[in-house]
């Protein structure tokens, strides 16, 4: 069936949305046709999620009209959108970990007049649904015991259980391993075969080309292009997305460092075991080292122990056993100050949660890791003159966009927040930088800047860099060696010149063939 003879199921006309002083959507017109998979392509901050949150009734739009099946609708809350058959799976799942899959799915269902929950009936209906779409999850287990991929299935089932005919998926593959992604795509195809329509939000070109029928490209809150899949290619989409030519897949870290045993280790990890939050071992005996001037990339799907590994190295999580040497010095576990003092630069995954104090000023955040040393610390006094000097210098050097050092941190954009962390890390000339998901959620400009800084620091300062990232492109673009973490273990470490995407992808899914 060609899209021409499909009828529009959703029409959004001149949608406008502002946040505070930023315009997120400027008069967007978007149409979804029945039975298609439509990709919404754009970089972070382009407005994809905002547009879909408007369609889902989660955000109220400032201006514009929405038509579903040709009828004008007004959504003041998601319940209105659900009633019109729209379901959305957010990037951060909206699940309650401590209750069962079934409870998560049936909560809020309005159709039954009964005061009491009829779990038997509900379970029956859910199992039918699972069979129909091939989405198998045990209804009786608690959500907290499920893997991320299974939780995503629960989210999709939740929408289908409510009779969703239009399913919105926000960056669904960001948390999946390549094999899981294949499963998801199969599910999406099955959905459209059954007459549903899918909106697929992504910034990954090859996925978009693989799964979607039609591609809508957003940039800076505007739709810049609409293409049928057969009419376009990755190169065109890439330039539409960022608004200029870019080199696809070109390595930023030009030339690579030959790793040999004569180069000094700046980080040595021996048989490290770390417990996760739910009392299950998250890191199961990893051993590796990071050399001077080297970028070691750890790839892997999130939730395979990378976070716990990073937190243990940062000094905020205690290991079960194992040894870590920082530049030859045995690391004092559970002591963040030790790592700061001995030359580890740390870029945490949750920059807002554990990296920054959002209600304080830019200066307060810049000096966080240096306030305990001279010249800032002067006996019991804090030398604010020195603090001002450092802040002004770093704001300029890292071109942090802010009203000044006294501006509140929460007024900055995501990229500039990450620059604050990067600035305070690099200022101290670290021997080692542990960077966990350093560019997640940032726009292209900020990503480039951060990549350049990391490469420069490793080259000029001879610092070792441990780059932990879910973004395979990033790992390939920066690393000298690549390791893959799967279920708490290293699947292998390989030099960049011997690494190919297919093997790494298989490793990420836990498949290890006899590789060269």
């Amino acid at each position, binding site marked *: 069936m060609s899209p021409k003879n499909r009828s529009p199921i959703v029409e959004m006309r001149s949608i406008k949305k502002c*946040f*505070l002083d*930023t315009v*997120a959507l400027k008069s967007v017109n978007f149409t979804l046709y029945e039975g298609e998979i439509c990709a919404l392509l754009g970089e*972070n*901050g382009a407005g994809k*999620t*905002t547009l879909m949150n408007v369609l*889902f009734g*989660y*955000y*109220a739009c400032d201006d514009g009209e929405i038509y579903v099946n040709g009828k004008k609708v007004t959504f003041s*809350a*998601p*319940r209105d959108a*659900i*009633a019109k058959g729209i379901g*959305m799976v*957010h990037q951060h799942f*909206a*699940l*309650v970990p*401590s*209750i069962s899959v079934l*409870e*998560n799915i*049936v*909560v*809020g*269902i*309005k159709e*039954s007049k*009964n*005061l*009491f*929950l009829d779990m038997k009936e509900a379970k029956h209906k859910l199992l039918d649904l699972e069979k129909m779409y091939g989405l198998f999850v045990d209804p009786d287990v608690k959500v907290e015991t499920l893997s991320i991929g299974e939780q995503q299935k629960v989210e999709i089932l*939740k929408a289908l259980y*409510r009779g969703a005919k239009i399913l919105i998926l926000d960056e669904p593959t960001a948390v999946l391993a390549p094999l899981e992604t294949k499963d998801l795509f199969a599910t999406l195809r099955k959905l459209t075969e059954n007459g549903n329509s899918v909106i697929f939000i992504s910034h990954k070109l090859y996925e978009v080309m693989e799964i979607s029928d039609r591609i809508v490209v957003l940039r800076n809150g505007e739709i810049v292009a609409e293409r049928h899949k057969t009419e376009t290619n990755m190169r065109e989409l890439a330039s539409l997305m960022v608004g200029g030519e870019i080199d696809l897949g070109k390595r930023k870290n030009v030339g690579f460092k030959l790793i040999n045993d004569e180069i000094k280790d700046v980080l040595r990890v021996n048989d490290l075991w770390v417990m996760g939050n739910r009392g299950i071992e998250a890191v199961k005996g990893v051993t590796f080292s990071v050399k001077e001037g080297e970028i070691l990339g750890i790839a892997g799907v999130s939730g395979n122990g990378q976070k716990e590994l990073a937190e243990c190295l940062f000094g905020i999580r205690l290991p079960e056993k194992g040894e870590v040497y920082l530049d030859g010095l045995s690391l004092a576990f559970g002591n963040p100050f030790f790592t700061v003092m001995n030359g580890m630069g740390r870029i945490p995954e949750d920059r807002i949660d554990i990296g920054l104090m959002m209600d304080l000023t830019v200066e307060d955040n810049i000096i966080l890791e240096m306030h305990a040393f001279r010249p800032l610390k002067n006996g019991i006094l804090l030398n604010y003159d020195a603090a001002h000097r450092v802040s002004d210098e770093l704001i300029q050097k890292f071109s942090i966009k802010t009203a000044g050092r006294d501006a509140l941190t929460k007024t900055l954009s*995501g990229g500039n927040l990450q620059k604050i962390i990067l600035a305070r890390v690099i200022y101290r000339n670290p021997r080692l930088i542990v960077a966990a998901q350093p560019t997640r959620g940032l726009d292209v400009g900020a990503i480039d800047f951060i990549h350049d800084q990391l490469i420069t620091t490793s080259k000029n300062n001879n610092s070792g860099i441990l780059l932990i990232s879910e973004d395979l492109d990033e790992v390939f673009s920066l690393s000298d060696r690549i390791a893959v973490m799967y279920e708490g273990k290293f699947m292998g470490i390989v030099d960049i010149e011997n690494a190919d995407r297919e093997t790494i992808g298989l490793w990420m899914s836990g498949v290890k063939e006899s590789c060269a």
Partner: protein
Amino acid sequence: MGSLFDQIFQMSFIIGLLSAMFRMATPIIFGTLGEIITERSGVLNLGIEGIMLISAMFGFLATLTTGSQWFGVLIAILVGVIFALMMAFLVVYLGLSQHVSGLGVTLFATGLAMFVYRHAVGSPTIPPIVQPFKPFPIPYLSDIPFFGQILFNQYALVYVSWALIPIMWIFLYKTRYGLALRVVGENPMAADTVGINVNLTRTLALVVGGALMGVGGAFLTLAHQNMFLIDVVGGRGWVCIAMVIFGNWDPIRGSLGALLFGFIDAFQLRLQSSGFAIPFHLFLVLPYVITIIALIGVARKSSAPAGLLKPYRREEKGG
């Protein structure tokens, strides 16, 4: 010393002690259940101490004027609901700090209670008293030896508090609304995205909770005592907060904690009157100290609703 032990092992002492335990626990059970339903929706109501006090005061005044104890309870419920709505306005709709708002409501309600009481009764040398609730022995059951005296010769409100424990449990775990309430408390966004009105749910939880706290307050001036004193609540509201934590947000475990508090409270009262040679104030310390110790025991294992203390606003960030 000897005489004390003699007293303790007398049957009448044990009956008196255990029956008093249930009586002393009743306001705590009401308060704890009220706080549990509130906190399960994600709202900490630190206004409880003030709400119990002002409900106790208005309930007392209503009974003083009309002579009807049940009318007093009704007024207390109404006052509890009004102050719960005030709390809802501040923390649910405006999203203000639950800590500070709750303390603010407590301080305001306390001040207002004292102000209204003083205006209503003036400053007589002997404070006015009401005819309190009479015990309501359950026919036949109260004749059972030992247990009948302890369990079935109580005030009607005591039985009500017992009935509420399973009702609350069934509501939370077996009904659609209970499930919705728990999801609102654990992950308000999850609730919102399946079409549950988060703010309305939280407001209703506060209202029901406020009503229960009101009954707890009324019990103090209309059954436990027959007059209103400034310190009639005397920290029992805070004890309820502690019992919620102790009970891990479960109505049955929370009520067991309340019974423990009732036991200690009844025990110290009896020690006071036994003429034991330790200043009675030291016994008064016991319930509070044991509450703190109980908190230490459960602190690491307790799992508060994940959405507790967090106001829910949909449009918090852009992008």
